[in-house]
């Protein structure tokens, strides 16, 4: 019998200055601040890279959902290197391929398509979070 999952860690891409990285962060903000604020926690990738103890402890204690902006998959790699368990890996490009009309553009400020894509992505992440919290889903990588 395992303890129920009480919180899910969200780790987005840190690609500053790139639209796909910005989409990943906007989606993470939407999940952690608007959609599931009590059940999720955003851990900045930069803190994991720096070896921040509190951030490493967070990803070690709870399942993580990573959102990467490109195939380098820095978020997923850093969670693994930090001793965390990835419940689900998302890639912005995979979502965009399913929503071709939502082309993300802009960097500091996403265009409308990018904002909508971030919302779609956030809803997909939220579905995974809900599945983990209710025990319906262990995540494809768990």
């Amino acid at each position: 019998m395992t303890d129920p999952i009480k919180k899910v860690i969200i780790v987005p891409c840190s690609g500053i200055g790139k639209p796909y990285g910005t989409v990943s962060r906007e989606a993470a903000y939407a999940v952690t601040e608007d959609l599931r604020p009590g059940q999720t926690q955003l851990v900045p990738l930069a803190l994991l890279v720096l070896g921040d103890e509190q951030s490493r402890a967070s990803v070690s204690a709870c399942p993580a959902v990573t959102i990467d902006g490109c195939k380098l998959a820095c978020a997923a790699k850093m969670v693994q290197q930090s001793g965390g368990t990835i419940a689900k890996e998302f890639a912005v490009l995979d979502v965009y391929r399913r929503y071709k009309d939502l082309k993300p553009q802009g960097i500091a400020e996403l265009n409308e398509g990018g904002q909508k894509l971030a919302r779609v992505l956030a809803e997909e992440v939220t579905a995974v979070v809900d599945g983990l919290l209710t025990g319906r889903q262990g995540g494809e990588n768990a």
Partner: protein
Amino acid sequence: MSEFLETTIDKFTFKVATDRFYTLEGVWAKEENGRVRIGLSDFVQQRSGDVAFAEIKPAGTVLATGEELAVIETIKVNITYTSPVNGKISEINPAMADAPEAINQDPYGKGWLAVMEVVDWEAQRAKLLDPPAYFKIMKGQAEEEAKNL
């Protein structure tokens, strides 16, 4: 199995397959039993970034050298690539519809774009770059871009 010319610039390694011919823009053409398979070089796919969509002219389209063959949308740019030969498209890669990332993963293999029926391949090949010539040009382009990193 292809063999490659290879160079590493900064942290990037670029390969040029030695069993095919190239345009200046990095489109390759490989003769196979009277038809020519076409794709993008490793340097082109790395420089362009992750491919989101690949729109290729449909089978049956007749193209002259230099006419639009495909538009590739990546996370960085939209690029139009032109045909390296005169001919008719007889087949396009079905993987491009659902998995265009094959261009990034295997540019000289599963990431091919189209197959064309051509007339007088030998004459058309003479207008393309052989692997050492393209390798030299590609290396220069890569070194130039590395200065801007």
